[in-house]
């Protein structure tokens, strides 16, 4: 079955091509489109399960499937399009196809009334195909195809409703941020090829340690470059500004791309090239501290956001920070574990907010009212109108806040524990652990605030809308329920010792992660007293955060946007997202555009080369011509003088020197 792994890519690819053709020829055939779209994903999911069973029975060695020779240039550089199925890529395969199918199902309901329905499904299928190429790629270049492919699809999907300038701007911004990251990956590939000579993952795992000196400059540079790529793709500190804007795309897109799959590509890449990172401890510290900082900052911003999707977006950035913190400390399994659980509850949260927004849209249409369907200040008291969505989002909120026994608690606790252990030897990790704790508190706070503002209190969206609010159709709530179950059960994947588990996922991933062992001592999880303290602390933080969040929002009635006074001081800074966007615009984008217009184009190109160079030679020629014409001024005397001068010169030549 594993040799048929390329089917998982082929189905969505075919789906994309068919839906694309339908979109251009007969966009109204919605039934066929949803059939092809969801069918492709389900087919791919079925094959994925088949592969999972086979790998489950296997001993963890990777099987490589060669499709064809991609770039056979010379003996030393011959890149083949091979897919690699090992335990890590199977996990990712299941998450992508599983959550992907659920989201496709949800989109059937959510996008039903949208004219671009076929085009939407074409892009979504294409996205899943590229994501699978990224995950299943056996070498960096092959993953790079998927890496850029998902960037392309996120560009297309974010800018899906291109009629609105803001959406297409957001799409462009996302792609450019990814491209900056891709610069890093490309440079890392060049360095790797010139140093190690191969770009295959297992080739790297074997040969990299011999060639690249431990903690040497080359390997650190490579690792940092790779991490630059990950920050671009997974929206970490320097390049995270595109993710909140990416909410301009349809909500299922946000769920699939900007919560479950694409943004986790960065984490996956770090785990996949773990050997290189383990060889460069400095790079590991950078990854950990960046992750922690991102988690902290994103959480602070989320506290003051009023758009439901913006809150979730910053929450995603923050949770990704956690994953990088985990990977930075060397707890690869914990990173992947949190990735999986996060995929479940964050997808659930997004889809939930999707059905809320969907309901608000319907109400506004029915009441012919206008207003921002995503502004939480216009919502409130929806628990009565949308019980299913309320319960399921509640579960997800508890999960993300880290309340046991839900999935979020186990994965986040694992990360914090790993950071704490690593913190023993290296204060940077201790700082990271501290930041992680604070972020956990804030996560609980803003999630509670979100739930309170949307579902509790009185409906603030105007009484004409209230009667039209009702629960989302079954096709949308169905996937929510599945995701809800997964959020509850998810924790079982990697239960730690004290809870009767055996770190199942960690052992499952060992064949992949052991390559890093010789350079990174294995993390001994704390036992006995410290473990209990850590777990207790995490639980109290979660509960305190939730309580605080609920209390502060519900004690005073939430003000509608019109009524809220302009925020001042810290609140204004948070609401304005630390003005990082404006900073980037002022420092990078603005000057580059000005520089290239004024200095490069008008300055060098038109003035220097064109007017001076080309024009210059033309003017010199004209000048010489003018000089010549001055001699022809009609004065006979002048002509005669020149004549005699000529004779004199001639005579001089004839006579020459003395006889």
């Amino acid at each position, binding site marked *: 079955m594993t040799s048929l792994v390329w089917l998982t890519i082929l189905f969505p690819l075919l789906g994309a091509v068919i839906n694309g053709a339908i979109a251009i020829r007969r966009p109204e055939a919605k039934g066929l489109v949803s059939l092809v779209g969801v069918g492709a994903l389900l087919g791919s999911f079925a094959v994925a399960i088949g592969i999972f069973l086979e790998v489950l029975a296997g001993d963890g060695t990777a099987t490589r499937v060669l499709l064809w020779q991609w770039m056979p240039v010379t003996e030393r550089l011959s890149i083949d399009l091979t897919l690699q199925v090992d335990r890590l890529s199977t996990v990712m395969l299941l998450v992508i196809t599983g959550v992907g199918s659920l989201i496709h199902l949800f989109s059937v309901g959510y996008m039903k009334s949208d004219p671009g329905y076929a085009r939407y499904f074409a892009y979504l299928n294409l996205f899943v195909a590229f994501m699978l190429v990224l995950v299943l790629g056996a070498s960096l270049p092959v993953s*790079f195809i998927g890496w850029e492919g998902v960037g392309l699809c996120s560009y297309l999907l974010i800018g899906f409703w291109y*009629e609105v300038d803001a959406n297409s701007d957001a799409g462009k911004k996302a792609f450019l941020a990814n491209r900056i990251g*891709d610069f890093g990956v490309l440079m890392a590939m060049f*360095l790797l*090829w010139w140093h190690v*000579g191969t770009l295959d993952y297992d080739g790297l795992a074997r040969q990299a340690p011999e060639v690249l000196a431990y903690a040497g400059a080359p390997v650190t540079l490579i690792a940092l470059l790779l991490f630059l790529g990950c920050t671009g793709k997974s929206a970490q500190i320097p390049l995270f500004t595109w993710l909140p804007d990416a909410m301009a795309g349809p909500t299922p897109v946000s769920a699939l791309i900007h919560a479950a799959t694409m943004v986790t590509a960065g984490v996956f890449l770090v785990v996949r090239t773990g050997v290189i990172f383990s060889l460069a401890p400095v790079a590991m510290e950078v990854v950990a501290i960046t992750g922690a900082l991102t988690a902290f900052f994103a959480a602070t911003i989320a506290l003051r956001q009023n758009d439901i999707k913006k809150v979730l977006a910053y929450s995603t950035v923050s949770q990704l920070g956690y994953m990088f913190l985990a990977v930075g400390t060397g707890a690869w399994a914990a990173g992947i574990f949190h990735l999986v659980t996060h995929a479940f509850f964050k997808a659930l949260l997004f889809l939930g907010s999707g059905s809320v927004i969907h309901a608000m849209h319907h109400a506004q249409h029915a009441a012919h009212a206008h207003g921002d369907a995503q502004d939480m200040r216009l919502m409130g008291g929806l628990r009565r109108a949308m019980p299913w969505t309320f319960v399921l989002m509640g579960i997800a909120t508890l999960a993300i806040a880290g309340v046991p026994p839900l999935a979020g608690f186990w994965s986040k606790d694992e990360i914090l524990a790993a950071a704490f252990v690593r913190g023993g030897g290296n204060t940077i990790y201790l700082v990271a652990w501290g930041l992680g704790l604070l972020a956990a508190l804030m996560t609980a706070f803003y999630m509670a605030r979100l739930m309170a503002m949307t579902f509790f209190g009185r409906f603030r969206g105007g009484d004409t809308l209230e009667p039209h609010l009702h629960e989302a159709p079954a096709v949308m709530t169905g996937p929510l329920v599945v995701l809800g179950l997964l959020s509850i059960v998810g924790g079982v994947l990697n239960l730690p010792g004290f809870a009767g588990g055996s770190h199942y996922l960690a052992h499952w991933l060992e064949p992949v992660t052991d390559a890093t062992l010789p350079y990174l001592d294995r993390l001994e999880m704390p036992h006995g007293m410290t473990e209990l303290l850590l777990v207790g602390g995490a639980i109290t933080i979660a509960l305190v955060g939730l309580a605080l969040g609920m209390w502060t929002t519900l004690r005073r009635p939430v003000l509608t946007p019109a009524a809220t006074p302009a925020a001042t001081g810290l609140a204004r800074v948070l609401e304005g997202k630390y003005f990082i966007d404006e900073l980037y615009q002022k420092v990078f984008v603005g000057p580059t555009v000005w520089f290239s217009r004024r200095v490069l184009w008008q300055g060098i190109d038109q003035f220097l080369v064109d007017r001076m160079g080309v024009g210059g030679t033309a003017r010199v020629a004209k000048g010489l011509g003018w000089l010549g014409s001055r001699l022809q001024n009609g004065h006979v005397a002048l002509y005669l003088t020149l004549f005699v001068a000529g004779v004199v010169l001639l005579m001089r030549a004839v006579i020459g020197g003395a006889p």
Partner: protein
Amino acid sequence: MTAFLAAIGYEQWILHVLLGLPLLAIPMILIMPVHRARWIALTVALIELVLGLGLWWAFDPANPAMQFVTDVPWIGAFGVGYRLGIDGLSVMMVLLSVITMPLVVWSSWRSVDTKQRGFYALLLALKTGMLGVFVAMDLFLFYVFWELLLIPMYFLIGSWGSSNRLYAATKFVIYTFVGSLLMLVAIVWMVMEVGRATGTYSFAYEHLLAHAYLLESSGPWLFVAFALAFAVKVPIFPFHTWLPDAHTEAPTAGSVDLAVILLKMGTYGFLRFAVPFFPGFALSESVGLVMAGLAVIGIVYAALVAMVQPDLKRLVAYSSVSHLGFVILGIWGSTVESVQGAIMVMISHGLSTGALFFIIGMLYERRHTRKISDFGGLARVAPLMATAFVITAFSSIGLPGLNGFVGEFLVLIGAFGRYPWLVAGATTVVVFSAAYLLWATQRVFFNRFTNPLNEGIGDLNMREIAVLAPLLLGMVWIGLYPGPILRRTEGAARMYIEMVEPYLSETPTVGGTMFRGGR
């Protein structure tokens, strides 16, 4: 297939037919009634295509030496011979021009309505020149074809262009002509010098190549002369200002031919003549740094300038300057991978920029404007055109899986060993090229539909789809399965490297071991 071709003695007559057919067709076009002109041109182009495709199988990738060689004395007294021959590099260029020719004729089916006879006759003359340059194995013949291209191009831009076409056409001719005159002097000087040293005066490429080492003293000057002529054509940074004007003012057929083939003559010239003749000087540390430096400046500079262009065609013209900078970087990267990459960029740039120009031509045909600000939200009115433009834009940006990436990746990874810092500079273009192309795509196709004039433009009709389809398929094919092409050009690349390898000066790059590692 190869057996069949060998049976009909394909090798002997193919090159002559490819060159001769268009010339024979020109008088026919001039005689026949006007409305038949374009049909003749199309049939000739299609015949050439069918015959030309045979090259793909008849060319034997294994043997790196020149194939299909013919050597007939032409002006015996001066050693000028009608010498033809192709190797890996030129077979690809011939195929590219043979494939794009029918598309070019077909794309100007509607747009050219004045003086059709002249237009198609010039187009066929251009075709002969194009093919001739890549197959000529005699420097005199090469120069004849090189010049043969100038005149038709001048008239194509001059009389069928748009607003200030005369300025653009004259600038184009003067720029190229000055360069090529220098080259003529260099060629004659070389032949004389070598003739004096070896006794036989001949323009044959092999003869000159074998004895180029004799020109120790005048070598540098001759290289500069050759380099200037080709630099103008490539165009390399300071000599590029003719390209945006020529492209903006040329009719679609003209600018496509210009982009797809004429620009490659410069890089072909470097690969075939300039560097192999004087490797010692060309690949010395200082000259290498200058050329590679100019290439990278060209790449980044052109991309930045493209970002702020108000005119769509001028934007694509600057993107061509940026892409061809990669080819020069690849040539001076002096590894088999970087030279293969350079050839790949030459081919894939032809496809993606050719398609971009076709689409812009179709837009111009509908709205008679190229200003980006005049368009907006066309995706709603012309979805197929929007899809084609997006695919071509992403292939031009270098999205892996499409043709742009293969060439650029190979150039960068190949040249990294020798110029790590320059390659780092060049790789930043990955961001800028995405910026300018996506910004343009967005302002033309994906924003508010404001301009009512755009309402009327219909989507691509069958003819236009037929023009774009082969290019789009080519992009995806080369992107995912470049194997066959790489195999065919490998012979030429390896030959080139063997020729220049001994002269390669070991450049101590900054942090040598940091970047070059074990290699």
